[in-house]
């Protein structure tokens, strides 16, 4: 038995557990955060399933027989199947937005004849790819299962699906939406995870930098120097921002390579290339995504600087900054799974209000060429950043930068009585 181990361990636990910042940051926040994340994911799954049940399927029927009518009725039992009076798939595509549809089923002229003869018939399924998230394939899967059930009722393998996707209004024949979704899954996860790492890491750098100045009392020295106090704040933010900017650039480079390296097999066995499909951002898209990430980083760093001003030392600064993590974790996990557009209005407002949702929304939007969403997000986050930076500058202009500390009991802010 190690001599003195038990006594020392007891002291260590007392010291750590009696620090309210550690208690809150390490135990209470995770205990609350993970159930919240679970609820978000659960809600996402439900909303995706509900949205799949509400799927509108446009039917382009070239068959005049009774079996195709029966097939449409069958589809209608689980999804909303709308027959459209156009002759080609190209004519049907513009109607997708009119009916808010996500699938087109093209029934060939020989459908009834083949079904009656129990001969295989190829039905074309066109799924719209909107870059919504990793649950996007649910609508397409539902149609698949309906076809299988129909076959069980009629004859095995009578109706054979021939799958294609519609991306940005363009029909890409022979591209299996499931293969595509699997490929895009990596993208749907990459941005939120990378953003989480980048933001938490950068905030820790900024918070540590300010807390170190306080702990080493170098801040007291520089506050008495003949210099503008706003310069101190800007110097701190710029230093952390440059590091974060380099990280963002490295991230953009890595992501570009990561996405470009992904290929998959189409149903015809051909190679599926995301670049060729137009499912990687354009140069302009990358630029916007970089700006979106950058302003989000800047606001996170300014928040970290403010939080660390209320800390007495490096350890408490890191704990205080960790209270902000739910602001990154919740939108990251939520938007990884669900399409923000299918959420209830109030939840959409909550997610849009969190500045750190916007780089994730932007990462999907730039792939789909929806630049307006990205620009509006950047404007919102930039405005938020300006407010935070103004608050930080006010803090640096007064003695609060030295005296303020957060009293966790009741979360009341109070002034620190000085020792001397």
């Amino acid at each position, binding site marked *: 038995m190690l001599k003195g181990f038990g006594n020392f361990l007891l002291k260590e636990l007392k010291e750590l557990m009696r620090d309210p910042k550690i208690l809150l940051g390490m135990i209470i926040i995770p205990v609350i955060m993970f159930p919240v994340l679970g609820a978000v994911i659960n809600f996402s799954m439900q909303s995706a399933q509900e949205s799949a049940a509400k799927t509108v399927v446009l039917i382009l029927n070239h068959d005049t027989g009774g079996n195709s009518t029966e097939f449409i009725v069958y589809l209608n039992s689980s999804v909303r199947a709308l027959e459209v009076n156009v002759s080609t798939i190209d004519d049907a595509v513009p109607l997708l937005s009119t009916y808010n549809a996500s699938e087109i089923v093209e029934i060939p002229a020989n459908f009834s004849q083949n079904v009656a003869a129990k001969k295989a018939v190829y039905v074309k399924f066109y799924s719209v790819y909107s870059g919504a998230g990793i649950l996007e394939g649910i609508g397409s899967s539902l149609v698949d299962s309906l076809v299988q059930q129909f076959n069980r009722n009629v004859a095995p393998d009578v109706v054979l699906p021939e799958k294609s996707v519609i991306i940005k209004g363009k029909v890409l024949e022979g591209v299996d939406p499931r293969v595509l979704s699997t490929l895009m899954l990596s993208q749907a996860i990459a941005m939120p995870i990378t953003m989480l790492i980048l933001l938490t890491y950068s905030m820790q750098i900024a918070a540590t930098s300010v807390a170190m100045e306080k702990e*080493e009392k*170098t801040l007291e020295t520089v506050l*008495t120097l*003949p*210099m503008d106090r706003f310069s101190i704040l800007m110097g701190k933010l710029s230093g952390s921002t440059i590091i974060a900017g380099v990280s963002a650039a490295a991230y953009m480079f890595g992501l570009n390579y990561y996405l470009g390296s992904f290929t998959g097999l189409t149903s015809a066995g051909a190679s599926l290339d995301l670049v060729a499909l137009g499912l990687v951002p354009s140069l302009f898209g990358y630029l916007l995504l970089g700006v979106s990430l950058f302003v989000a980083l800047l606001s996170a760093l300014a928040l970290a600087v403010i939080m660390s001003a209320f800390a007495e030392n490096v350890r408490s600064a890191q704990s205080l900054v960790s209270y902000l993590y739910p602001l990154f974790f919740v939108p990251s996990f939520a938007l990884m799974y669900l399409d923000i557009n299918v959420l209830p209005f109030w939840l959409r407002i909550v997610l849009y209000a969190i500045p750190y949702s916007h780089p994730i929304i932007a990462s999907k939007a730039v792939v789909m060429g929806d630049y307006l969403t990205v620009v509006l997000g950047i404007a919102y986050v930039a405005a938020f950043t300006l407010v935070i930076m103004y608050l930080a500058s006010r803090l640096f202009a007064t003695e609060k930068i030295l005296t303020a500390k957060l009293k966790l009991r009741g979360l009341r802010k109070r002034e*620190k009585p000085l020792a001397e």
Partner: protein
Amino acid sequence: MFRRKGALGLSVAVEAASVVKVFGNIRALDGLDFSVHAGEIFGLIGPNGAGKTTALRIISTLLLPTSGSLKVFGLDVVQSAAEVREVITYLPEEAGPYPNLSGWEYLEFMAKFTTKNKDELGRIVKEAAEICGLGERLKDRAKTYSKGMKRRLLVARALMTKPKLAVLDEPTSGLDVLHSYHVREIIKRYVRERGVTVVLSSHNMLEVEHLCERVVLLNKGKIVAEGKPQQLKEKFGSANLEEVFAKVVGFA
């Protein structure tokens, strides 16, 4: 007594009038009145919690007085804080340099707030190097320095730019006998040679007795005695300032 003129032609370097500082329920300073003559070494002495650091922080424009006024060479620390910062340097208690900068880089960084002229910059840093006496170790990162070396570096930083007023909070706190002696000699020599005014704090009363021309004794935010060390000893019939303080606050 001959009084040297201060930097701005005034003979009073610091003038505090009824200075009060309150933190929440704590009255850290309770009506402080004192003045510091230009060119002298003035000591604020007292036990922990007496209000020494708070007073020095107000002089250095870090804290605002709750009431009362404090002027540095005629400049109000609230109204003219930026101008006050032009004429002072401040050494916080137990402050350190930036650990990942070398001593030389730290001195250069600090000197650049005073001058942009390269020759002048070189001269200031060279002078600081002489004051601190760290020699070749100035090329090493500050995190490799001992506590005494760091303190010598910081004292040199506070004096190298020839400030009109150097505010030194516990300049020898935590140092061994030799380093304390070295720092005290630096301060004494520099004030004598450059005519810099120094306001320092210490709870080491024997040290202050040796270093300061005049002192105020603080206890619980109030001045309990003021004068030259010798005068105070004679007045209270004590062998040293420690005894004076004990008598004043009723311990002896």
